[in-house]
């Protein structure tokens, strides 16, 4: 098998005195899509944030390799340039910064890192139109401030639009499905499916089996109290849906 895109070994992270991640292990290989499920407060967003480089969390133990490189010593922007992308659970509104300016700066930054020329205005516009169509984002959004005044669903679609623009190696989706109506869920799922490729991997955090009907995972994990306590095939999601988390957490407690 190829080298993993992401290798997490015994990752511990805390905020202040509270340990939130308590020894996470995970390998994600090119082309794979992993789903991470787990009850509220189990540490899913924390894992995503630590991977993206948010400074609020202190990593106390463990290591993370991203394409073989030490991820944890990179700044957030270096991680992005190396091909990591986080679709935020709560995308941030940035008044006064247009979506186009923002994406153009970001994309050209990534291109520079890859040794490519910046796109000219025309090429960039065309690319935006093409990728926006993927998640049915109206071109009028390009001139609007990033996420400002967007509905919950629009914000989530905008995250996938950015993903499509920036073409990351690893995309982490933090509850991109929550707050979406059925149609929007379908749009987002179609977008994600269109972006799946043998060279790219996904880590999809969700509470709902519903999403996984559209985006079929290769592996499903249950994160509980800062640890992955169960890993299985896509059917695991169905089982969780039917039986609830108690079914796995009880076994976990026994194991402890």
């Amino acid at each position, binding site marked *: 098998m190829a080298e993993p895109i992401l290798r997490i070994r015994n990752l511990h992270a805390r905020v202040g005195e509270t340990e939130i991640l308590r020894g996470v292990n995970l390998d994600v290989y090119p082309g794979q899509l992993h789903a991470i499920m787990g009850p509220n407060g189990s540490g899913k967003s924390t894992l995503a944030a630590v991977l993206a480089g948010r400074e609020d969390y202190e990593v106390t133990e463990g290591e993370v390799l991203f394409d073989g490189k030490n991820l944890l010593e990179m700044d957030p922007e270096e991680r992005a340039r190396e091909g990591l*992308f986080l679709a935020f659970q709560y*995308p941030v509104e*940035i008044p006064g910064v247009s979506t186009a300016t923002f994406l153009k*700066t970001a994309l050209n*930054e990534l291109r520079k890192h890859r040794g490519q020329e910046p796109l000219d205005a025309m090429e960039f516009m065309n690319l935006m139109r093409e990728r926006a169509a993927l998640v049915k984002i109206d071109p009028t959004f390009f001139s609007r401030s990033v996420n400002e005044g967007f509905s919950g669903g629009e914000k989530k679609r905008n995250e996938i639009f950015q993903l499509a623009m920036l073409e990351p190696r690893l995309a982490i989706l933090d509850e991109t499905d929550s707050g979406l109506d059925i149609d929007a869920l379908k749009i987002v799922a179609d977008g994600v499916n269109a972006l799946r490729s043998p060279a790219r991997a996904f880590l999809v955090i969700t509470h709902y089996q519903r999403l996984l009907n559209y985006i079929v995972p290769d592996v499903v994990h249950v994160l509980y109290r800062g640890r992955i306590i169960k890993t299985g095939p896509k059917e695991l999601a169905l089982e969780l849906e039917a039986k609830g988390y108690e079914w796995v957490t009880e076994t976990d407690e026994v194991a402890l």
Partner: protein
Amino acid sequence: MTTPRVERSPILEQIAADFAQRVESSNGHSTPELHALRRQAFDEFQRLGIPTVRHEEWKYTNLFPLLAKGFHLPPHRRELPSLDAVLAPLRRWGRVVSLLDGLLLPHQDEPDLLRPLSEALRDQRWFERLGRLAPFEGNAIVAWNTALFADGVALRVTNEQTEPLVAVSVLDGRGGNIAVHERHLLEVAPGASLTLVLVQRVLGEGEALLNQVLEGWIGENASLTLVLVQDAPQTAHAITTHELELARSARLELITVSIGGGFLRNMPAARLVGEGADAQLYGLTLADGSMLVDHHTTVEHRVAHCTSNELYKAILDGRSTGVFNGKILVQPNAQKTSAYQANRNIVLSSRATINTKPQLEIFANDVRCTHGCTVGRLDREALFYLRSRGLSKKEAEALLLAAFAEEITAKVPIESLRTDLNAHIEHLLHTDELA
């Protein structure tokens, strides 16, 4: 107000010598009435003295280090310097009229609208207006200006002026540090409209202090957009007093963009004296180094059913100082007033300071009046979001700061000027000290 005090100092002696020089040079050139007025103003200035930081209105803005640099009145001029290089970029913004050391230069783009103030003052109707909105009594800066003003313009607009007028104050610092006192009278006749840009330029290496007093009447249904562009190098200093009176249904938009200069103190006042008048005041400060930018605004509602709104924003870095003092005065008759004021500040350096003070004096009971002030740093969530997309920290900061600033420049109705200001701001945000 604290008791006025007279300070004996080289600074005051210099000003007294300036006054003697002014009296001598204007002999035979101006009317006895103007002579008398200057004399009274000078007496009042001597009585008041230069305001010190003990003066409530000057608490955070110390004039003495500035004046200690030693400023002289401009020397008598033999030949005009070439101003082409200075004026050319400004022509993109509109029709340019230029003043050199306070004197209106001939061959202006627009001779019909305006003439030298000194000439206009021979006409009793103009002379009567001098000091009506900006009386020198109790105001040292205006008294100083009245005693010493070189000249200025009398500008009267009677119709809709579609093309903006750009008045540039060129101060010739090639022979050392100079102080120039400019005095302007402006009338926007009923129904007329004007966009006026005021900008300052300095020649040479000397430091230049502009003391500019403008009195403006905005007639019924008339509208004035006044853009004060303060973008010069740090050798340019300015003390501005812009007193504007709004008649019934008149509209004022005042946009002050202070992104360059050394010591800048702006005292705009909008007096709403006719029902239905509306005043919008916007200000942007972008300061680093040891720059000081002080916006002391006054909005006075004298009659009912008027609206006003103020938004002042500042980004402070280095050892810079920002001051915002926003006075809203609602007189007893001014029922149904609606007055808003907001002041937002971002302080980037621990050595930079902002002093902000709303000053609400409300004597009517049926008014809607709100004010708010924030002092903060950049939004951390937004910074992380941008960085997580590949923008460097510096780039992300610059982008957020530019967005913060552009809320004000967006109010500038002249596209070329707006573009130039935004480019200048972006440049400043990418240089080392800021962000």
